């Protein structure tokens, strides 16, 4: 038997059912007597709510009920807490605060009748002045959005990290200071499958089963118990196969709560599936950070201090899903891969009349924004110093002997060999030759750009002393049951959405137990069976549940060793685990396998030992993990049309120990494609009335294979010293690292024309305009 399981590109165990269209997604769930729900949404971004007229909707054949905010208020459910500790309207009662806000729900026998009914619910609105620009949120004339709050202000919170005094001291005698404003636009993960649920409150048992697109089913169960005041053991949350999540399926959305109420009211299972427009315009936007970065440096290019201020547009409710003590997520990773003497970062969050959300789209809790900020600012500094951006980075990278590295913003980076990864990337892309080619092209007036991003990620939230969501500590879990024939059922507190958990977890468990990945069945997503966990987001599954899988396997092995000793008629201390089997020290020919032991655990136990072979492990990580990578983009720009062609893109990732290289490569391809989309085509803008101008796929673009560049990938391996198998997590790295590489490449191409910065998305019209502004008339 091949005992080396970790590091093998095993084909994904879940793919046969996905590729054959046999997944079990939320909309595949059909229960007897099931009713359907459609939501009536506000056309106004800010308006007083008048009467809601149900009659016409109720007259539609098949419509069963119309539920309004007043109906919910009677049950104390018109508002719900968000994961960020704010309150959010479930259905509006007195006013609406963003376009497409939930106002009423129509329950009907069929989906069609529900939508027909929803179109006929007549709502009286009295429009109010609209606040769209976050920079205007705190001016005296701005309308007050959240009249429900005690604090009569559109300011939500101020957060900072680092030492402002130290930054001032270091910067006071700096030879060079650059300052750059940059906007990371509001965008949206928009997975293939939108959000949805089937709520089933059984009249017979009094038990609620909520089938729901959730990346964190256990957290949902607890939140539901608290919000709906239901006993937690009478709630079962099942998260079936998920068609992509990327953070858009972490939050608890009003539609879920209304569906639960609707099931209680009607006594029937109620299904609600978002339309694409509902998803884009009301559910979990991403980013929307207005950032200013200042770097103080020496003339030779040694960075000294970093100062960052960010204005965060949170929309109408602070509904981001961040660890509670980190309202700006892990944005304070913004010193990146560089050794700064001092740093300070401050974030102010404000309300606007836009959809709520904030943390999604593979962002690693705002690391996308942080990484973009520092990698863009480093290029601005390089331009100021007239240095090659790679030379500038080389001068400032944290050195291998500095790990564990204490960053000035309070993190302890676990491990890294940055220079090695950079050198590998430069060699693979042929950096020196590309610069030569670029010089020749520039001499001919052609626009070619090379963009480098050397990002450091921070994932695996997180240690319980710092990390919780609404008080729930962010540990995660694994449970392993070894059956008598040596086959394994392993369950986890996370919930994969296409990441390949069923394969990678199986590989970890198989590795620890001396089995093959085929011997291990992985299950997640059912709170009745899976051990408690905080779910999958922030690239945390491998750092937390992956660690739990390994340590749970070792816990099983500890018991198995006792049984092995019994089978080998030896003392336990004479038994060792070697080459995926138990053997007698010094006599390897006398051995038993895990399969032998498993059978004995149920058939032939040593006296006094508890039967069975299973274990549970709750893993509280001692630190976060810090994956990193070097991404290089090469672009050519058409001077006549503004079209950018990404000629090459190389991603060299270091995510520590690689469990399945094919799964990692797939993750990177997907994330790079998203990063490409963010850099070049995606934004959710609003007009002055607060109308959402990207509420469908004609306005909000998702790249296909036709537009996507060809991705080149490579890796270096620097294991995490504190993770049981040295793995760091990788899911979000490509989205974190790539936007800056694309933008740096485009700005590099345009730099001979005096362009220093352009905000994403770098659409053709935007670049065309930059070319015209620079006097190009081709």
């Amino acid at each position, binding site marked *: 038997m091949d005992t080396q399981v970790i590091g093998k590109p095993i084909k994904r165990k879940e793919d046969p059912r996905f590729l054959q269209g046999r997944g079990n997604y939320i909309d595949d769930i059909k229960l007897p007597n099931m009713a359907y729900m459609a939501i*009536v*949404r506000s*056309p*106004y*971004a800010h*308006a007083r709510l008048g009467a809601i007229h149900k009659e016409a909707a109720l007259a539609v054949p098949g419509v069963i009920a119309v539920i309004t905010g007043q109906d919910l208020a009677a049950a104390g459910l018109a508002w719900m807490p968000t994961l960020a500790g704010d309150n959010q309207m479930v259905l509006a009662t007195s006013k609406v605060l963003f*376009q497409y806000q939930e106002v009423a729900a129509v329950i009907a026998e069929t989906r069609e009748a529900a939508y027909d009914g929803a*179109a006929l619910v*007549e*709502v009286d*609105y009295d*429009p109010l002045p609209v606040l769209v620009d976050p920079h205007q949120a705190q001016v005296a004339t701005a309308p007050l959005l959240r009249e429900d709050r005690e604090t009569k202000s559109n300011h939500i919170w101020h957060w900072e990290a680092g030492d402002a005094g130290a930054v001032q001291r270091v910067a006071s005698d700096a030879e060079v200071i650059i300052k750059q404003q940059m906007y990371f636009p509001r965008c949206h993960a928009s997975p293939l499958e939108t959000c949805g649920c089937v709520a089933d409150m059984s009249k017979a048992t009094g038990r609620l089963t909520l089938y729901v697109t959730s990346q964190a089913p256990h957290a949902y169960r607890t939140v539901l118990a608290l919000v709906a005041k239901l006993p937690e053991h009478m709630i079962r949350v099942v998260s079936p196969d998920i068609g992509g999540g990327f953070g858009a399926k972490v939050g608890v959305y009003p539609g879920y709560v209304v569906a639960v109420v609707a099931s209680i009211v009607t006594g029937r299972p109620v299904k609600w599936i978002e339309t694409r*427009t509902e998803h884009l*315009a009301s559910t979990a936007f991403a980013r929307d950070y207005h950032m200013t970065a200042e770097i103080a440096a020496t003339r030779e290019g040694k960075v000294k201090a970093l100062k960052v201020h960010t204005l965060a547009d949170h929309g109408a409710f602070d509904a981001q899903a961040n660890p509670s003590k980190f309202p700006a997520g892990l944005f304070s990773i913004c010193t990146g891969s560089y050794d700064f003497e001092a740093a300070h970062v401050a974030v102010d969050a404000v309300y606007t009349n836009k959809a709520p959300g904030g943390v999604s789209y593979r962002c690693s809790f705002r690391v996308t924004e942080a990484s973009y900020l520092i990698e863009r600012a480093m290029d601005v500094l390089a331009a100021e110093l007239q240095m090659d951006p790679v030379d500038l980075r080389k001068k400032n990278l944290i050195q291998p002997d500095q790990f564990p590295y204490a960053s000035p913003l309070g993190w302890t980076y676990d491990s890294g060999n940055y220079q090695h990864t950079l050198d590998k990337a430069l060699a693979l892309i042929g950096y020196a030759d590309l610069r030569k080619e670029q010089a020749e092209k520039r001499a001919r007036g052609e626009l070619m750009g090379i963009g480098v991003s050397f990002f450091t990620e921070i994932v695996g939230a997180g240690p319980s002393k710092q990390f919780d969501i609404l008080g729930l500590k962010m540990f995660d879990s694994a449970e392993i049951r070894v059956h008598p024939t040596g086959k394994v059922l392993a369950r986890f507190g996370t919930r994969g959405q296409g990441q390949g958990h069923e394969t990678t977890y199986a590989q970890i468990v198989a590795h620890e137990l001396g089995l093959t990945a085929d011997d291990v069945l992985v299950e997640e997503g059912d709170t009745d069976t899976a051990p408690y966990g905080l779910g999958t987001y922030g690239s945390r599954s491998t750092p937390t549940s992956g660690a739990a899988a390994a340590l749970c396997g070792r816990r099983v092995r500890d018991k198995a060793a006792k049984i092995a000793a019994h089978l080998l008629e030896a003392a336990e201390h004479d038994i060792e685990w070697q080459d995926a089997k138990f053997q007698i020290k010094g006599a390897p020919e006398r051995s038993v396998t895990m399969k032998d032991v498993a059978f004995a655990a149920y058939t032939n136990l040593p006296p006094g030992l508890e039967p069975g072979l299973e274990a549970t492990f709750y893993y509280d990580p001692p630190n976060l993990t810090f994956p990193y990578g070097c991404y290089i983009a090469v672009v050519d720009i058409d001077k006549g049309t503004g079209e950018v062609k990404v000629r090459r893109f190389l991603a060299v990732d270091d995510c520590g120990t690689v469990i399945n290289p094919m799964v990692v490569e797939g993750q990177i391809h997907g994330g790079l494609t998203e990063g490409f989309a963010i850099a070049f085509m995606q934004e959710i803008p609003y*007009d*002055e*009335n*607060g*109308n*959402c*101008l*990207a*509420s*469908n796929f*004609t*306005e909000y673009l998702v790249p296909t294979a036709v537009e996507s560049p060809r991705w080149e990938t490579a890796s270096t391996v620097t294991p995490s010293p504190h993770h049981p198998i040295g793995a760091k997590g990788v899911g979000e790295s490509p989205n974190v690292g790539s936007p800056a590489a694309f933008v740096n490449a485009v700005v590099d191409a345009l730099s001979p024309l005096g362009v220093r910065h352009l905000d994403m998305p770098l659409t053709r019209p935007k670049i065309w305009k930059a070319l015209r502004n620079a006097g190009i008339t081709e």
Partner: protein
Amino acid sequence: MKMQLSGVETIHAAKADVYAFVTDPNRVGRCLPDLQELEVTGGSQLVAHVRMGIGPIRGRFKLAAELDASRGEQIGMTLKGSGMGNGLTMTSTMRVEAAADGTTALHWSADASVSGPLAGVGGRLLEGQAKKTTTELFANIRQALEAAS
């Protein structure tokens, strides 16, 4: 989405007739394009149901309008409407001016504001459609007046 629209209709009718027409909700209401139902709810108010929209977003809208004749030759018209999950408001001013040749010029300007999917989905087409609908309203007023005279 906010829009400013304006135009002028040269009407072969006396100024007094034009003035009387555009201050009468019953007559102005009948000139609303794609009118399905009209109810005059007061001396200067009307509620109308029209069928309007852009492309696939088309359906029944309820419009409530009020005419304001208190400012002499400047006639105000405010219009608030909703339908298919959209909201729209329009504030419009009309001015009548007699010409030497016996015709009357009806100058009109309107500030329109649209909220809802119509503004998001139909954004690029909206301005043209709004202009078309509004122009049609005043052209209908001219035709009705000329047919009557």
